[in-house]
């Protein structure tokens, strides 16, 4: 086999494999599946968007294809359901718009009896609306009222405290209040303390002089002791020379 034939065969095989793979993927993605369109109605279009998922038991089985407003003012919601999920849409199925507090809004399909007849495409069931945000707001509303009431009370108390603070200000800081009198007393005390300063200095001086004097007294005392000892020695010497002194004796009286 020639080289050109081999290359051509390789390219053809590769192209076939790619096409088969693409077809397989397209089939798996439902590209070739048939889609059924159902129409739902709602009093308000608030919360509906095109491309919004349609879920059954937590699985996405379709999506909102188009939103329209009819002559009667009703909002028509067209949903596209692939054939493989058609079995979940029955005549007694209910459609609910669920708007969670956190996360994207979606249409939830609930079917109680899966053996019921399929929903005809010309029937237009109404969408019920479950709004977590509004429910939460309704639940929070009493709390908000109470908070508002508390805030009002706080404001009232605050105003009373303001009044009291004003009165206290007058009593404490007024011209005849406590603080001016305290200031006056402090000034008096300060003046007296200043007058005491020279006295304290004098006391310190006297104390220092006394301390130095005590040192002198210590020296003087040692001198006196020396002198007395010397006199005592002389007296002993005289005693010993005179020799009239008796031996000292401690007697009972």
């Amino acid at each position, binding site marked *: 086999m020639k080289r050109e034939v081999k290359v051509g065969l390789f390219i053809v095989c590769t192209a076939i494999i790619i096409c088969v793979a693409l077809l397989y993927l397209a089939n798996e993605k439902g590209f070739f599946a048939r889609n059924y369109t159902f129409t739902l109605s709602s009093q308000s279009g608030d919360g509906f968007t095109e491309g919004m998922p349609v879920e059954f038991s937590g699985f996405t089985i379709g999506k909102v294809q188009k939103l329209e407003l009819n002559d009667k003012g009703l909002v028509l919601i067209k949903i596209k359901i692939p054939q493989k999920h058609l079995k979940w849409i029955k005549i007694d199925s209910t459609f609910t718009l669920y708007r969670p507090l956190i996360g994207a809004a979606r249409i939830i399909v609930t079917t109680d009896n899966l053996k019921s007849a399929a929903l005809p495409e010309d029937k237009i069931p109404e969408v019920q609306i479950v709004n977590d945000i509004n429910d939460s707001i309704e639940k929070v509303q009493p709390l908000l009222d109470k908070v508002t009431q508390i805030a009002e009370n706080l404001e009232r108390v605050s105003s009373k405290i303001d009044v009291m603070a004003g009165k206290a200000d007058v009593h404490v800081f007024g011209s005849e209040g406590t603080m001016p009198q305290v200031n006056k007393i402090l000034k008096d005390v300060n003046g007296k303390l200043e007058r005491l300063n020279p006295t304290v200095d004098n006391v310190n001086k006297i104390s220092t002089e006394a301390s130095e004097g005590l040192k002198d007294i210590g020296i003087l005392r040692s001198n006196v002791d020396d002198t007395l000892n010397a006199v005592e020695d002389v007296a*002993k010497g005289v005693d*010993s*020379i*005179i*020799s009239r*002194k008796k*031996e*000292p*004796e*401690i*007697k*009972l*009286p």
Partner: protein
Amino acid sequence: MKKYLILVLMVFICACGSRQQFPDWKETAFRNFENYKKNFLNDREGVSEPHFVKVKQALSDGNDLNLLAKIYLTKYALHTAVLEDFDDSEFVRINKLEPGKSNIAYFNFLKGNFTAVEDNFLPSIYSSFVKIARNKDTTKAFAEVNSIDDPLSRLIACGIWIKHFSYDENILQLAINTSAENGWKRPLWAYLIKLQKYYLDHGETAKAQNINKRLDVLKN
């Protein structure tokens, strides 16, 4: 000739002298002991006690427990002389270590245990007095106490008699006169107060008041 006379005189003077010396601790103890007694009787407690401490210290330095016991006995005798009680624990402690018969005799004498007193070991000045005390002969007490020459011994005898026997104002007056003659403030006041109480106990309020006024005057 004159030089020889001076030389003989110098030799004579030197011959009169001797080199007798006493231990310092003994002299210190004796001197302070006399000062202690004098200051105690003059009611100068603040001065007397340091002297007593010095006596104790000096005698302790001389390791003489007998003398140490004697100074405690003297202290007790002085307290007796001014009609005060005394704590004898120190003497008892010392006496256990070194018992002395004269000390025990004097201690019994001060405590009023006259039958236990051995007369031979008691100072002779009290020999007649202790016999009278042993016989509780109150009629001879005044005369016997009055016959004691040493004023301090006389006061001690007065104190012992007043403490252990019944007494009259004569013996109190004797103690007062003895104290006054020697200028001893502490016993003077003690016996004046005792005499005042004696008069009050015997219903002689006028005399008691007189003593009270005398005390007021003496106080100043």
